[in-house]
C-alpha cells in the first residue's frame, strides 16, 4: 500500500547555496551529527552515490545503505534503502521508500523553493502507522534543513548572499562538483572573494 506526502517550503537562501550545501557532503556527519552520526560513501556510479549511514533517534541507533541520484541542477532522489547489516531488524525490510528533494528558484523572489516528496510502499499491517512514519521523516528533514539554512544564512551575512566561491574553489570537495560548477559557476562570477579572504578582511 502506498502512502505519499509532500512538504513545500520557501527558504530565505539562494538556489546556488541551497544546492551547494546539499552537495557539500563534508558537513553531513558534523553539522547534522544529531541525526546522522556516521556516513561513508561506498560507491559512485555516474550520478548515483551509495552511502552507508548511521541514524539516531534518541537512544536508538540503526544503520542503512541507500543510493542518491542527482538530477542537475537541484533534484535529488534517494531510493533503495536497506538495513546494514542485512540481518538487522529494520523498517527497510518491509517498507520501500523513495524520497525526492527538489530545489528550484522562486519565480518572483531571490529565494528557494524546497519540495520534499516521499513515497512509502508498506504492507497493510503497517498502514495504521503511516502518519507516525510521516511525522518522523518530516521532523528529521526539517531539523536537517534548519541546520543547513542557519549555516547558509550565517555565510551569507559574512561573505554575501551570492558568494559561493567556497563551493567553487578548486580545493573544496563537493559531490558531483563538475555539474555544480557547470550550472552555478557562471552566476557567481561577480563574487570573487574566498571565505578565507573575506575572513582576513574582517580582521
Amino acid at each position: 500500500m502506498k502512502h505519499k506526502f509532500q512538504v513545500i517550503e520557501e527558504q530565505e537562501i539562494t538556489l546556488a547555496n541551497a544546492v551547494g550545501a546539499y552537495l557539500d557532503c563534508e558537513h553531513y556527519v558534523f553539522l547534522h551529527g544529531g541525526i546522522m552520526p556516521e556516513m561513508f560513501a561506498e560507491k559512485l556510479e555516474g550520478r548515483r552515490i551509495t552511502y552507508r549511514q548511521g541514524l539516531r533517534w534518541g537512544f536508538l541507533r540503526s544503520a542503512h545503505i541507500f543510493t542518491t541520484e542527482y538530477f542537475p541542477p537541484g533534484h535529488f532522489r534517494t531510493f533503495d534503502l536497506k538495513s546494514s547489516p542485512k540481518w538487522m531488524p529494520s523498517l527497510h525490510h518491509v517498507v520501500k521508500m523513495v524520497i525526492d528533494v527538489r530545489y528550484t528558484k522562486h519565480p518572483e523572489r531571490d529565494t528557494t523553493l524546497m519540495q520534499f516528496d516521499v513515497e512509502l510502499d508498506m504492507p497493510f499491517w503497517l498502514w495504521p502507522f503511516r502518519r507516525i512514519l510521516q511525522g518522523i521523516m518530516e521532523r528529521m528533514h526539517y531539523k536537517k534543513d534548519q541546520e543547513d539554512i542557519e549555516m547558509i544564512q550565517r555565510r551569507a551575512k559574512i561573505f554575501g548572499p551570492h558568494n559561493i566561491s567556497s563551493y567553487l574553489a578548486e580545493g573544496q570537495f563537493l559531490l558531483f562538483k563538475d555539474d555544480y560548477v557547470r550550472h552555478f559557476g557562471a552566476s557567481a562570477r561577480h563574487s570573487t572573494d574566498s571565505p578565507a579572504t573575506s575572513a582576513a578582511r574582517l580582521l
Partner: protein
Amino acid sequence: MHTLDLVMRQDQDYFPIPIEIASLLPDQLNHRRVSEGVEVVVFSEDNDRYFIARDICPHMGAPLAQARLCRKTGTLQCRWHGYIYDSGTGEMKENPNDKLFTKIKTAFQSYNPLSTPKYRIKRLSYEAAEGKIFVRRGAANET
C-alpha cells in the same frame, strides 16, 4: 574606571570592549563581544596566556564558539565540517572527511585536493592588565 582601562578603550589599535579575565571559564571556549559586530573566542592556555581568535572558521565561516576544544590533543574541531585545527598555532591539522569520502574524492575534475588552502585560525594579539584582556585589531600570527 582605571586610567589604563580608559587609555586602552580609546586606543584605536584595540577593540573597545575588554574581556574580564575573571569571567572566563577554564578549559573551554569562551565567546565574547569586543566591539559592535565583532565577536571572539578565547580560552586560557596557561597562566597569563590566552588563545584569542575571531569567531569565524577560516574554512567556511562557522562560529568557532561552537567548536570542540580538546585540551588533551591540543585541538579545536569545527562544528560544521569537522576540520581539526591546532589550538596552539591555529593551523589546520586534519580533514576527517578525507576518510569518510575517500572512495569518491578523486571522481570530479573540478576538485583538486592539492590546491586545498592551508587554513589557519589567526590568533589575535592582546594586552592583559588589571584583570582585563584588551584585544588588538589584526592578527598575531599573520604573515
